[in-house]
């Protein structure tokens, strides 16, 4: 059998994106949703191929291409993560197509749809590069690829003023955070003369260099990454952008962008762990994120906004894992987060097209569509952290690592905020099962979405009982 190497995966995705873009341009007569299905099939093949890539341990002294690109287990795992996320997002986008069409009144019936369905492929490409990046320059370039395609996606239904506001906010703040990133890289490069993360480790171990200046640079980089993962105090954009963006894009932002951000954060922080201030700084950010995300989620009445705050809250739990530097705990939590978040958004997209995005629009969903209500129930209890769901095991591993390292403050705040989480997630369950409604119209679910949602439910429960496959995939 032919051996596949990791960079070929990205090349395949790039070619897929180009081909679909060309088809979109020249074949004007077809139903544009076919493009989504073609993209899903193509990405699925790449995903399958990725399992045959032999991970190579990242060499400390590589040259050329391999000095900024690594194909270690972590990166392969998160390439697969990005592919799976993109596939589910494309399925959601196919469901969301009518909304996009409606948002261009007067234009040709299918205008805009093609780009909407093609851009995620390029975002996926950026994410795949990002998780492999071990050089600041490459991190910057791939991060820009992700961010620029998100600029377009976030403001895609631009006739809607809320979406436009979201797009502008995202554009301005994202550009600002990029500036911080470049400035931080410049400081680090200035102090150490290195951009490669491995050589940076050696450079920082040298007592002759100015640690304070390196720390300043790291702080700036942390600002930029804090923006990506929605950590306090860089989270201000999150609620408005999440609420305003087209829902599949919100799901993509909250899963894909955040996961890649965490991988980069883990890689970037590693060299700086020799400086004790780094950990203190991250502990502080984690505490603020946990408290802010959970408390601000309590009064929310709009489900999309609630999920935005919940995404901040989960960034807090993930940061606990980052503080303890437990890569497997963080990775498992991200997988659990992918499953339950995509599940919630998938249900939200279908229900929102019938009624709306407020929690009160979910009143009596159990009667209108038992399947969707059950899916949402699993999503919410997993987000809250009930045993036998992936969300619980994620929290378990994170707390396990924190207890092992005696991070008392993080553990205490973490436990209390889990209590808050139960309140606001079960608010949705209450609406679906406890409230009655006058609207009893059934909600149709098409076959592909039903399949995708069922798969997400199954995986949420399966990894909640038997997490070993994920842990094995990450074993060094």
């Amino acid at each position, binding site marked *: 059998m032919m051996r596949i190497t990791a960079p070929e995966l990205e090349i395949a995705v790039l070619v897929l994106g180009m081909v679909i873009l060309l088809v979109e341009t020249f074949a004007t007569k077809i139903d544009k949703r076919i493009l989504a299905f073609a993209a899903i099939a193509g990405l699925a093949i790449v995903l399958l191929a990725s399992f045959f890539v032999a991970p190579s341990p990242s060499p400390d002294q590589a040259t050329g291409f391999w000095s900024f690109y690594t194909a270690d287990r972590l990166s392969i795992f998160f390439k697969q993560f990005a592919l799976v996320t993109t596939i589910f997002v494309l399925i959601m986008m196919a469901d969301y197509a009518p909304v996009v069409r409606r948002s261009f009144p007067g234009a040709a019936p299918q205008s805009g749809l093609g780009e909407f369905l093609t851009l995620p492929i390029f975002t996926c490409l950026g994410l795949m590069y990002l998780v492999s990046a071990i050089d600041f320059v490459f991190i910057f370039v791939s991060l820009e690829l992700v961010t620029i395609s998100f600029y377009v996606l976030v403001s895609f239904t631009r006739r809607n003023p809320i979406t436009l506001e979201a797009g502008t906010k995202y554009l301005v703040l994202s550009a600002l955070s990029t500036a911080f990133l470049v400035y931080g890289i410049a400081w680090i490069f200035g102090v150490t003369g290195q951009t490669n993360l491995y050589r940076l480790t050696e450079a920082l171990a040298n007592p002759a260099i100015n640690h304070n200046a390196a720390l300043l640079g790291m702080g700036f980089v942390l600002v930029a990454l804090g923006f990506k993962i929605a950590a306090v105090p860089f989270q201000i954009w999150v609620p408005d952008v999440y609420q305003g963006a087209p829902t599949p894009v919100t799901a993509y932002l909250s899963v894909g962008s955040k996961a890649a951000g965490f991988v980069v954060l883990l890689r970037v922080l590693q060299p700086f762990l020799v400086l004790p201030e780094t950990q203190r700084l991250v502990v502080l950010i984690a505490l603020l994120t946990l408290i802010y995300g959970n408390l601000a989620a309590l009064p929310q009445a709009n489900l999309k906004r609630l999920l935005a705050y919940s995404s901040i809250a989960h960034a807090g739990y993930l940061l606990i894992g980052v503080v303890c530097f437990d890569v497997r705990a963080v990775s498992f939590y991200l997988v659990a987060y992918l499953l339950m978040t995509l599940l919630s958004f998938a249900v939200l997209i279908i229900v929102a097209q019938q009624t709306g995005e407020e929690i009160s629009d979910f009143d009596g969903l159990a009667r209108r569509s038992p399947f969707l209500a059950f899916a949402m129930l699993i999503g919410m209890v997993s987000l809250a952290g009930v045993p036998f769901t992936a969300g619980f095991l994620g929290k378990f591993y994170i*707390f396990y690592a924190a*207890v092992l390292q005696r991070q008392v403050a993080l553990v205490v705040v973490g*436990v209390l905020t889990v209590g808050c989480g139960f309140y606001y997630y079960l608010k949705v*369950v209450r609406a679906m099962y*406890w409230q009655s409604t006058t609207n009893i119209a059934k909600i149709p679910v098409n076959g592909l979405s039903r399949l995708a949602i069922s798969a997400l439910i199954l995986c949420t429960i399966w990894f909640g009982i038997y997490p070993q496959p994920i842990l094995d995939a990450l074993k060094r």
Partner: protein
Amino acid sequence: MVLFIIFCPIIAAILIMVGMPARKTALAASVLTFLAAGFLLASFGHGQSGFQHVTSFTISREWRLSFTTGIDGLSLIMVLLATIVTVAAVWFAGAIERYENAFYACLLFISGGAIGAFASIDLFFFYAFHELALIPTFLLIGIWGSGNRAAAAWKITIYLAIGSFILLLGLILLYQSVPAASRSFDIRALQTAASAGQITADAQRHIYLLLLIGFGILVSLFPFHTWAPEAYASAPAPAAMLHAGVLKKFGLYGLLRLAVPLLPEGARHWTNLLVILLLGNIIYVGLVTIAQKRLDWMLGYSSVMHMGYIFLGIASAGILGVTGAAVLMFAHGLSIALLFALAGELRQRTGTLVFDELGGLAKVMPFAGLAFGFGAFAAVGLPGLANFAGEIMIFFGAFKNGWVMDSFHIFQIATVLALWGVVISTVYMLRAYRKMFMGTVSERWKQLLDLRLALRVPVALLVGALLCYGFFPQSFVRVVAPRFRTYLSANR
């Protein structure tokens, strides 16, 4: 066999959700599990202190995590209690107006989760099964409850969620407290490590406190008890039966299973605190119970109050007191289930549980009156009913407890005060009985019918079990005591 008892209710619950006839399936499953538990009791090897009927499936070799189930004397009687109360609760549930399938599925999930928690030898599943049972409890109160159900459901959800996560922290610390080489989720392995003195005294104190607070919230230890009366008052009768009767015992079971045997130094260190808190349960909550004007609230508070006695038995750490605690857990589970069942039935027939509106019901409902009398007298601790055996063992055990005390003997003071609790519970139970069943019947209740024959079966089951263990407590002690004897002597 143990696996069958755990999964029979859970599989039945799934079948009901898929569309099997709700009531018939639930009843069949609960009776089957009850019979299976009876078979376990009959085939139980007496005199052995280890686990029996052990089955094990490895989940993660790296974490030494496995799905291991088995029973010893203590878990056997808890499983038996769970199956008896499940049969009664399902039987009493009757026809449900809204979402009948979901209702019965929730009941069976609580039952399966509770049994799973009692029969798990693995810490992780011990915890996870209990959580599995909690969620349906919240749903039952929220969807089918009465009165201010939303508020009650919120309160119990938040309290118990925080309690469980504190408990989880304690369990993680416990797992990490032994040296990495012997780390395991298996309770037997932890017991070996603890007996070999591998858990340091300092760690024991921290872990015990976490476990005490975590389990304490779940069992409504004073001052974490405020969720309980409200939740039980709003819960539909079968849910209150299962939660107050069975699921709440999980916390006590956890203390008996983990905290006392694994952390003797922690238990010693925090004894005074526990004794003061449990007196809060007995005296303070007891007085609050007297002040109640509605039956459901009174029963809710009384169930909180009686937890104090069980805590007293656990705190005493002597073979007599601890065995008494186990007996009282079982007996209280039966009696409170009986009382909640009758209260639910009365509420359905009369539409009110306010004492001042009821009266003379024994004339129109003689059987219900008799059954309520049994429940009330059992709760008070009348000789001949199982609670008496438990309480008297606890009082004697606490008075002459297992600790070596200095001049100030807090246990003897506590026991004297706790004995007053018996008077307090007599006051409120007898008063409730007089106000509801004695006196003249008002015109409103003249046409009330007594319990149907079908409903007398579960009542007879509960009363029969109370009487059986009331007259032959030895048959019970024989099952439980060997377990305690090993670890209490090992710790001395």
